């Protein structure tokens, strides 16, 4: 992921350019805006200071999601017990604690979507509150994997940590030379992930794909990539495929790490997965998934979607694809080479992971959603901390486990059990 300076139009002047552009003062404020807001406020009572402080400390309670009504009820009970009747009147509606509603699901969706599917079936509990285990981290994760009875955490500092999932103890610390980019995947012999350099950083380095030997905890192969625009790793038929250039896929032997071949596809690639004897790629800015024959790089099917395609992954009987700008999760039937369903997800879904119970977890920009394919229904939705990006690759901090998933929060790993498990 070297950044070609020829394509850095502002160079060192970016700060100044942003100052000039974002700093333009000539906004026209809609007439009457302040008055309209004040009029709306007139109908609301001010909250007591202690409730207001509590709300503001907790992000206006929006971040507390499903606990908000509980807290509100608790506040009323405390008010009754401590202060007696008068405060109850002040907490009543209007003028009570105007708790934030569960966010709506957003935009109108295309005809392929069943709008009844994926509606939020429950309120939004805080993810940390539902986590059953926490492992503290010293650096913010950029990618998380679960393989060889260990958790693997790449961070923005260019380190790959290996942790014991039972105790959280560090088993190994491996230098990557650049921030790790998810997904972290494993075959029977090795762990695979990509690195992303960060332009302008003294640590910037070219994009690479890395193979780690879990028996020695050492990087045993590093493949220099040619400025790819996407990330993805796929294992099929003893070969591990990765995105090695804007339109290039390269295979290495899973057992040996030896380079085998490269193929070129028609359009620049965003993400890649493998399964059912094929490579599945999402072309950048196209509303489709392309099925590619790894033997010769020919496209054997092009599956149309409602929106531009993003992250793609394989489960037992399906290919799952994010449609990040249409807020959709798509399921492709590989036998029919057709979309079998598209379900509401959340804005900018960046990663999809299956857990051992068969639930599909979608990591969106500010939410984590659990989807049950058997019921075709959303079974969990949780606000998540904003995850950083590596370059412009969103951090992919989900890893599946037997009965839940691991989520890489900014300073800890949280284990989130499957809803209903």
């Amino acid at each position: 992921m070297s950044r070609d300076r020829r394509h850095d139009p502002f160079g060192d002047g970016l700060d100044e350019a942003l100052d000039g552009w974002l700093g333009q003062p000539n906004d026209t404020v809609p007439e009457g805006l302040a008055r309209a807001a004040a009029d709306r406020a007139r109908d609301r009572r001010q909250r007591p200071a202690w409730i207001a402080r509590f709300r503001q400390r907790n992000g206006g309670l929006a971040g507390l999601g499903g606990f908000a009504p509980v807290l509100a009820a608790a506040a009323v009970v405390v008010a009754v017990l401590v202060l007696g009747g008068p405060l109850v009147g002040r907490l009543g509606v209007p003028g009570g604690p105007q708790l934030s509603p569960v966010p709506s699901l957003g935009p109108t969706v295309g005809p392929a979507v069943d709008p009844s599917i994926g509606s939020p079936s429950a309120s939004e509990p805080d993810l940390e509150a539902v986590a059953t285990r926490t492992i503290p981290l010293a650096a913010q994760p950029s990618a998380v994997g679960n393989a060889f009875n260990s958790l693997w955490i790449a961070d923005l500092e260019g380190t790959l940590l290996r942790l014991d999932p039972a105790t959280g103890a560090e088993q190994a610390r491996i230098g990557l030379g650049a921030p790790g980019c998810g997904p972290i995947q494993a075959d029977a012999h090795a762990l695979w992930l990509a690195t992303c350099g960060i332009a302008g950083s003294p640590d910037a380095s070219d994009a690479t794909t890395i193979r780690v030997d879990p028996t020695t905890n050492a990087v045993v192969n590093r493949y220099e990539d040619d400025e790819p625009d996407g990330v993805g790793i796929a294992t099929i038929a003893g070969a591990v495929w990765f995105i090695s250039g804007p339109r290039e896929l390269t295979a290495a032997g899973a057992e040996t790490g030896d380079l085998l071949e490269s193929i070129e596809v028609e359009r620049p690639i965003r993400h890649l997965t493998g399964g059912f004897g094929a490579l599945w790629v999402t072309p950048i800015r196209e509303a489709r998934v392309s099925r590619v024959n790894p033997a010769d790089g020919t496209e054997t099917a092009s599956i149309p979607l409602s929106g531009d395609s993003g992250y793609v992954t394989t489960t037992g009987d399906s290919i799952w694809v994010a449609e990040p700008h249409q807020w959709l999760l798509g399921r492709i039937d590989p036998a029919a080479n057709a979309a079998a369903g598209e379900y509401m997800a959340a804005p900018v879904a960046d990663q999809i992971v299956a857990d051992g119970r068969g639930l599909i977890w979608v990591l969106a920009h500010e939410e984590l959603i659990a989807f049950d394919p058997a019921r075709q229904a959303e079974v969990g939705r949780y606000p998540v901390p904003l995850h950083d990006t590596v370059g412009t690759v969103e951090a992919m901090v989900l890893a599946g486990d037997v009965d839940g998933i691991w989520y890489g929060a900014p300073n800890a790993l949280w284990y989130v059990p499957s809803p209903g498990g």
Partner: protein
Amino acid sequence: MDHDLVRRAQAGDHEAFSSLAQLSVRRLFAVASRILGDTHLAEDAVQDALVEVWQDLRGLRDPEAFGAWSMRILVRVAHRQARRSPRPARLHVEAIGISGPDEYAAVADQELLERGFRRLSVDQRTILVLRHHLGLEPAEIADVLGIPQGTARSRLHYAHEAMRAALAADARHGGIQPEVMR
């Protein structure tokens, strides 16, 4: 900001609050419209934020902190708006008059910046707006966002790099930008 107005509004004086709203609205609207890229969404966000400011004003301990405190509420409301809405269609920064070749180049640069900015996540857009529109230092950004200073610096760095990457992608693809760059 008039601290006396803040104190009076905290005591329930609605007229004082109306004056505060008049004094704050330009700044709040400018930030919301840049984060959300949509003047209608920004209008809603400012209204919601000001209502929340009124309701929670008694919780503000230091009237001098009103500016940062109200901006924090606005940013949070704008993020909620962004969750409910697709990515911004277009950032509305009003056009300047064009009278010569230099200004044509400036407009071209603005279009380039706008295309890059539209590809950023809401938190990246937010931190760039706080830095480059309001001119806040990392410590002040940290205060508005309720995050540690180190995290603010880190997020600011990555937001700049994301912007740089988006601009590079735009150049490489002749104006058609990929979502992901490595």
